[in-house]
C-alpha cells in the first residue's frame, strides 16, 4: 500500500493542475494579454513568476534548464485567430504552447501545437512545431514576468517578453484585410480634381464649405491630397476599391495606411470612362457629402 503522505500531495497536485483558475494564492499568478490588429487576434495566456529577490535567476536557474516556457506552471500559450508571420516565419492560426530553447547567443522560440502542457513536460519533436530564432537583449529590470505588445502598426506589431534583466522582442505581421493597390488603368477614370462638401443638416441654410481633393495615381494606388490640408493625419489619403466604382478611404501617415474609414463608402458616378463626382455614404446609406469633378 502506498504511504498516505505520498498519495495526498500527488492528489493535491493533480487537482491544482486540473483547475488552474481556482480560488487559491499562487507564487505565479495567471495573467493574459491580447491584441487585435486588422481583425487578427493574438492572445497570450501565462503564469507570471516573480523574482522574489532572485535577481540572477536566468544565470542561476533558467538558462540551465535548456528548454523553458516563458512563464510558470502550465506552459505559456500563444493563440492566433488567423495566420501571421512571426519574425518572418509563417505561423498558422491555432493555439500553441511556447518555449525558449537556449543557445550561447541566440534563443529559439518553439511553438508546439500541443498547447496544454505542464512546464516540466518539455516538448519532444512532433509535426507542426514551429521554430523561430530570436535574439535576447538586456532589458529594464522586471520583477514579474511580462508579455506586452509595445508597438502596433496597421499590419502587425511587436510582442515583447521581459523578466529580470532579459528582454525578447518579436515582430509580427498579420494578413491585410484590404487590397490597397490597383492597376493604373483601373485608377485612370478617377484621377482628377474634385470639389467636395459635407451634406447640410436639415434646416441649415449656411452655404457648405468647399474642399478641393486632388486624386492621383502614385506608387500603385489611388492617392488623394486635400487643399487645404485638414490636419497632419489627413494630409494624404488613399482610396481603394471594394466594388466597381466604390471605394473606401484610408488616411496615411509617412506613406503608410494609418486608419481605414470602414463606416463610409465613396460611390463614384461615371460618364463613359470618366468619373464625374462621388457621394460619401454612411452605414445607414445616408449621404454624408458630395463631390463634383472640376478637372
Amino acid at each position, binding site marked *: 500500500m502506498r504511504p498516505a503522505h505520498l498519495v495526498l500531495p500527488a492528489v493535491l497536485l493533480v487537482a491544482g493542475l486540473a483547475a488552474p483558475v481556482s480560488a487559491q494564492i499562487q507564487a505565479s499568478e495567471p495573467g493574459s494579454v491580447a491584441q487585435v490588429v486588422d481583425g487578427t487576434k493574438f492572445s497570450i495566456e501565462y503564469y507570471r513568476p516573480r523574482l522574489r529577490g532572485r535577481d540572477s535567476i536566468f544565470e542561476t536557474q533558467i538558462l540551465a534548464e535548456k528548454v523553458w516556457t516563458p512563464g510558470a506552471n502550465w506552459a505559456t500559450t500563444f493563440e492566433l485567430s488567423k495566420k501571421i508571420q512571426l519574425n518572418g516565419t509563417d505561423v498558422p492560426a491555432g493555439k500553441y504552447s511556447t518555449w525558449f530553447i537556449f543557445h550561447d547567443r541566440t534563443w529559439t522560440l518553439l511553438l508546439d501545437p500541443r498547447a496544454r502542457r505542464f512546464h516540466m513536460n518539455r516538448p519532444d519533436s512532433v509535426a507542426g512545431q514551429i521554430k523561430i530564432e530570436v535574439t535576447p537583449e538586456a532589458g529594464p529590470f522586471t520583477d514579474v514576468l511580462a508579455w506586452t505588445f509595445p508597438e502596433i502598426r496597421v499590419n502587425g506589431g511587436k510582442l515583447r517578453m521581459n523578466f529580470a534583466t532579459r528582454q525578447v522582442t518579436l515582430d509580427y505581421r498579420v494578413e491585410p484585410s484590404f487590397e490597397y493597390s490597383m492597376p493604373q488603368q483601373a485608377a485612370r477614370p478617377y484621377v482628377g480634381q474634385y470639389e467636395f462638401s*459635407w451634406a447640410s443638416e436639415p434646416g441649415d441654410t449656411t452655404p457648405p*464649405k468647399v*474642399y478641393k481633393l486632388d486624386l492621383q495615381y502614385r506608387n500603385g494606388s489611388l492617392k488623394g491630397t*486635400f*487643399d*487645404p*490640408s*485638414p*490636419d497632419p*493625419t*489627413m494630409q494624404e489619403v488613399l482610396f481603394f476599391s*471594394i*466594388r466597381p466604382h*466604390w471605394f473606401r478611404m484610408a488616411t496615411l501617415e509617412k506613406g503608410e495606411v494609418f486608419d481605414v*474609414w470602414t*463606416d*463610409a*463608402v465613396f460611390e463614384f458616378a461615371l460618364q463613359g470612362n470618366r468619373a464625374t463626382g462621388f457621394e460619401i455614404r*454612411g*452605414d*445607414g*446609406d*445616408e449621404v*454624408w457629402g458630395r463631390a463634383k469633378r472640376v478637372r
Partner: protein
Amino acid sequence: MPQLHAEAGTRRAFLAGALLFASSLVPLRGLAAMGRRRGGQHPTPRPGITAAKVLTPEQLKDAPDSLDVFNMVREIPEIVDGIRCQCGCADIEGFYSLLSCYEGEGAMARDCMICQGEGRLAYRLHKAGESLDSIRAAIDARFG
C-alpha cells in the same frame, strides 16, 4: 479645412453613439449587432413571400426615423428576402433573411443602423435596375 477632420469625426462619433443607443434599446438582439459577422450564404427568396409581417407605420410611431426604410422594404420583400443581414443577427433563431429584421414586434431594423442601411441600399440599387446578385455583392462589399 481643419473642420474636415473634426466634422468627419463628429459624424463618425454620432454614428457610433447611435449604434450604442440602438443596442441599449434592444439588449438581447442589439448585443449580437455589436460585432459584425462576415460571410455566410445569402438565402434564397421564399416563393410567394410578402411584406405582410413588416411593421406598419402605426407600429412605428415610436421610431419615426426608421419609417422610410420600412416603407422601402415593404415594396420589395422578394428582394430583401434574398439577402443575408451582416449586422450579426443572422444567427439568431427564427431569422431567415434581411426581411426578418423588419418583421414582428422585435424587428431589429427599428433601431439597428446596419439593418436600415442594408434595406436602404437594397432599395436604391433595385430601383437603379441592379439584379439580386449584384445587390448581394454590394451588401457584402459595404457591410461584410
